[in-house]
């Protein structure tokens, strides 16, 4: 049967109208995320803190490592421009808190990145390839789980020098275990899902299945988990700096500032309060952000 030309056109235009504009997983997630006020507020506060931490030290009249001989150990003083006061050596605490924030956030984000890359690759490899390799890789992971890693990091840092890069790598290398487990589990369960089978049946190539179907589905959980990793990393770095094993003077981080602050809090409470406030607010926001992202990206929950 041969259709006339106008009829053919009508059919094809009908078919093109049939194609409903799909909502992608990410559009959906974005819509849900922006409805969550706590998560959105956290995102805004975090952006402000990040901007402040990057730009603040550049704009301030004082350098983070230069003592102001005129006002040592002084309380917060707006007239002199020491908004948070000065530390016991007369260095401006406002600038130091921001510089510390730079280091803490950088360690947090880079550390999380290292952990995410190692963990995702390891987990995805174990999940995809499966079989014997999977068993060996998971057994290795179990052995690594039993290591008291904090002790290993302290050992590394004391014996091989206190280098910021070493801290990044040590912290990142320690925290990829959970990530690997999560990604492996996710890939395993995805591999046998109906929509993957359907794609196979339709003749979609292996590579296309991985990039188009598996990666986006794993990505959600990776994003959520890395947001929740960052505060952990920041805490870890602060923990090291608090013990005097992290960043070295005159450079500083929130942990190092808290260490100084807790030593002089009886006479100068602001030494403790300002860095602690910044750190707690940041950690709070990362946690809320992570929770919000989880709610937004979980495809089960529509």
């Amino acid at each position, binding site marked *: 049967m041969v259709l006339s030309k106008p009829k053919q056109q009508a059919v094809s235009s009908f078919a093109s109208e049939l194609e409903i504009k799909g909502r992608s997983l990410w559009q959906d997630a974005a819509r849900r995320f922006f409805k969550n006020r706590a998560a959105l507020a956290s995102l805004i506060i975090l952006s402000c803190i990040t901007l402040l931490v990057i730009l603040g030290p550049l704009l301030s009249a004082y350098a983070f490592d230069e003592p102001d001989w005129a006002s040592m150990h002084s309380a917060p003083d707006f007239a002199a421009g020491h908004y948070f006061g000065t530390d016991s050596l007369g260095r401006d605490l406002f600038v130091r808190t921001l510089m510390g924030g730079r280091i803490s956030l950088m360690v947090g984000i880079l550390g999380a990145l290292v952990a995410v890359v190692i963990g995702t690759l390891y987990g995805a490899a174990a999940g995809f390839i499966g079989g014997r390799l999977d068993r060996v890789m998971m057994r290795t992971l*179990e*052995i690594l*789980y*039993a*290591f*008291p890693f*904090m*002790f*290993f990091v*302290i*050992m590394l840092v*004391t*014996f*091989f020098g206190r280098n910021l890069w070493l801290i990044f790598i040590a912290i990142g290398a320690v925290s990829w275990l959970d990530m690997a487990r999560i990604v492996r589990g996710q890939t395993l369960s995805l591999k046998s899902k109906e929509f993957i089978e359907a794609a196979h049946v339709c003749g979609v190539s292996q590579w296309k299945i991985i990039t188009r179907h598996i990666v986006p589905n794993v990505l959600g959980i990776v994003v959520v988990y890395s947001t929740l990793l960052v*505060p952990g990393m920041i*805490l870890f770095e*602060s*923990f090291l700096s*608090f*013990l005097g094993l992290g960043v070295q003077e005159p450079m500083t981080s929130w*942990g190092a500032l*808290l*260490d100084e*602050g*807790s030593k002089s*809090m*009886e006479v100068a*409470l602001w030494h*403790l309060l300002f860095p*602690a406030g910044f*750190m*707690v607010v940041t*950690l*709070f926001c990362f*946690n809320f952000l992570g929770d919000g992202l989880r709610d937004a990206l979980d495809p089960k929950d529509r």
Partner: protein
Amino acid sequence: MLKFILKRLLEAIPTLLVLITVSFFMMRFAPGNPFSTERGLPPEVMANIQQKYGLDKPVYQQYLTYLGNLAQGDLGPSFKYKDFSVNDLVSKALPVSATIGSFAFLLALGLGVSLGIMAALRQNSWVDYGSMSLAMLGVVMPSFVLAPVLTLIFAINLQWLPAGGWNGGHLQFMILPVIGMTMYYISSIARIMRGSMIETMNSNFIRTARAKGLPLHHIILRHALRPAMLPVVSYLGPAFVGIITGSVVIETIFGLPGIGQLFVNGALNRDYSMVLGLTILVGALTITFNAVVDILYAFIDPKIRY
């Protein structure tokens, strides 16, 4: 069951061996040594010291000797504190850490679980919101912020409790360290417990129990508690490790003569045998505890076949 327990415990042995080997070789190939001073020792003295501690022998021989001694429970002499063996120092420090740690652990478990249940039963009420905001605060407030603040309030301003020290394990001296350590774990356990309790209370068998007209406390204690505890039980392993490592910070702040303090001093002094011994001890504790948690889990969860 017995077979499962045995198997789980036997599995821990290779893990422990790997741990010992890695720590040993890391320690031996670390730069610097505990005897180097600023002026440097004369080579003859150095040779004597090395001979005394057996450091002049080839590394594999040292490793085998160490392994042999370890099998007999001997962690070797301390490189820094002359006349003391690592065993002496550890046996003095371990009770301190263990006391504080177990108080913190039990408190976290008890309070965390009850808080979580309370919040779950009164979901979306002020009890729920109040306890969960507190729990969130507990999670984001690191112990090295919390502990100084506690000291400031209760020891310096109110003068109710001592600011630090151990004093032979007097109860007063333990309160602040235990609170400083346990807050994070109370909060985490409460959050986990709330989530799993809500899920359990919405499940079919609880609906059946309610329909039968059982009293609420009966439903909670007999039916809901066991399945709801599962995620908490699997969190106990990481919590235990965290409490051991957390002791490093708490002991530094409160000046307690425990394992954490010993480890940090050992690392700073490059007291290799001490650091090695403590790493192995803590690793062994961790592995044992994880095995115990696994076995416990198998007991509670009827779905696990062994």
